[in-house]
């Protein structure tokens, strides 16, 4: 929480230094100089910066992030409309990255010393050199243009509609009880999720693999072997439980990278989430929106860090006792 307060202050100060006039921008182009001046006073822009920040903070804690100059409507409404889409995207991508990363890590470790493991390592290095936005473009090029298998824009095919319950499309389509809608939403998510998830997976693969290697040097693994336990039961029963801890830590600390990646991936796939809102706000210097969205990115990252900490605590018997 103190981190959050400091962050909000820094962002606020940084944005107020910008050579733009929020009053001018929140009025129609036909506004006269007097109208702009009046608006400036109304928006409190004539007060000292620290006072402006205090006012902003006062309303922000009540959920009021001011009005968007570009959309001329409350920032909080705008943000809440898009937040679910981005969270859904990031969550699915993270789930994919974890499943794929852990599976690959185990596979490479289990096949150690064979050609399969080397091939797995090469693949890992290749993916590692392809950041999410390049993967997204490559997928569009390969699976959207050259071999059009997947839709490459938006969340749902035109003409289809789903009652808006939670904003999470996968949940809403399931709730509507129409598998066709669910599959359509899923196919729209396929490429963005793949791009984000795949780009995040090499880190998981590498950390899990080295952590498995380290675990196998521990004495209890040797003892388990001497007791005649099978390779499989040692790997899944003993080693994985311990080796997964660094992966949890990694996911917690590196989640910001994936979450930030949604920004570009949303742009590339015309995905109506926070990222597109943010990019548009940056282009139009819509200060209140930039501010609010930046804080949401921060808050989400911080929450994930804490979740990972809690996960480590729960998984690690030594910490609990």
């Amino acid at each position: 929480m103190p981190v959050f307060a400091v962050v909000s202050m820094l962002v606020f100060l940084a944005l107020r230094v910008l050579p733009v006039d929020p009053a001018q921008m929140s009025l129609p182009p036909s506004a006269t100089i007097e109208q702009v001046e009046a608006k400036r006073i109304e928006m409190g822009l004539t007060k000292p910066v620290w006072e402006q920040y205090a006012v902003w903070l006062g309303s922000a804690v009540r959920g009021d992030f001011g009005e968007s100059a570009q959309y001329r409507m409350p920032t909080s409404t705008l943000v809440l409309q898009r937040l679910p889409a981005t969270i859904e995207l990031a969550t699915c991508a993270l789930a994919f990255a974890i499943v794929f990363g852990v599976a690959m890590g185990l596979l490479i470790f289990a096949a150690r010393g064979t050609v399969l493991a080397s091939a797995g390592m090469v693949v890992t290095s290749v993916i590692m050199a392809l950041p999410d936005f390049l993967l997204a473009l490559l997928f569009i090029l390969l699976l959207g243009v050259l071999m059009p298998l997947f839709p490459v824009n938006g969340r749902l095919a035109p003409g289809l509609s789903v009652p808006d319950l939670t904003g999470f499309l996968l949940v809403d389509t399931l709730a509507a009880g129409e598998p066709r809608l669910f599959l359509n939403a899923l196919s729209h998510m396929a490429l963005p999720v793949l791009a984000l998830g795949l780009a995040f997976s090499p880190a998981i693969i590498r950390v899990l693999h080295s952590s498995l290697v380290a675990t196998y040097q521990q004495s209890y693994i040797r003892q388990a072997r001497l007791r005649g336990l099978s390779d499989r039961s040692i790997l899944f029963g003993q080693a994985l439980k311990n080796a997964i801890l660094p992966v949890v830590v990694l996911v917690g600390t590196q989640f910001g990278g994936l979450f930030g990646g949604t920004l570009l991936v949303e742009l590339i796939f015309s995905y109506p989430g926070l990222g597109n809102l943010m990019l548009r706000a940056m282009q139009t210097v819509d200060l209140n929106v930039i501010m609010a969205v930046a804080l949401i990115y921060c808050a989400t990252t911080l929450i994930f860090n804490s979740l990972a900490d809690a996960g480590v605590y729960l998984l690690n018997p030594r910490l609990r006792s």
Partner: protein
Amino acid sequence: MHGFARYADIRLILSGGAVSAILLMALLAPWIAPHEPNDQDLLSILMPPVFAGGSAEHLLGTDSLGRDILSRLIHGARTAMTVAIFASCGAMLLGSVLACIAGYFGGRIDWAISRMVEIWLSFPPVVLSMLLIVGLGIGTDKVILAIILVDWTRFCRVLRTEVQVTRRQDYVAYARLAGFSHGRIILREVLPGVLPMIVTLFSLQMGISVVVEAILSFVSMGVPADVPAWGQMIADARIDIYSAPWGLALPILMIFVTVLSFNALGDSLNRVLDPRSSARRPV
């Protein structure tokens, strides 16, 4: 173990060779590029590469303004390397200095620097770098500055722990007993211990800087319009993805090869320089 070491050597040679080639290309760009990267030929736009039916005049074809793609790729390497080298050095210096101070002195200074790292890490790096550009404005120097201001934490976080470990070593304690100054101890005793880690991180940071520069140029928040950059080439080519997919694929390939080379170099260096690495970073 013998075979493994040789594998590492081959990787080092290969990745080192690739990195040298890219750096050389960047250095010699004005002499080896067949055309001026910004020269427009509005009457021959979107020509395909020579292997896809284009002419030898433009080996890799032209873009939507009739500019030679090969020349732009070569000059793009110059931009990418300029940004990457300065940004990585800056991030390395800033991060290492703060890490040494924090790790060596500990206490309140350590607390303050660690909190700062924490605040920084609460931002997704992409978001932070874009926010900085919104504040700083566009420009090659601004991109470099933004990367330094975002990525110093990578160095600081890893090195601080290393410095703490090194500080507890006997030889450092002896140096302190012998009455050497703090600065001298850090430079002479602590720094050599963490140097392998710095070199590895630097190589990885080069790849990261290339990617960040590409991202910022891609969203028109990077280098100015008249400086050729790979990210900008991707952004320009995106609208013609159907009629001229090559324009998109080629800069992607360049970024990929560059990042792959720097990553591989970092890994190989880590293995060669750091005796502990075989246990910690086997992939």
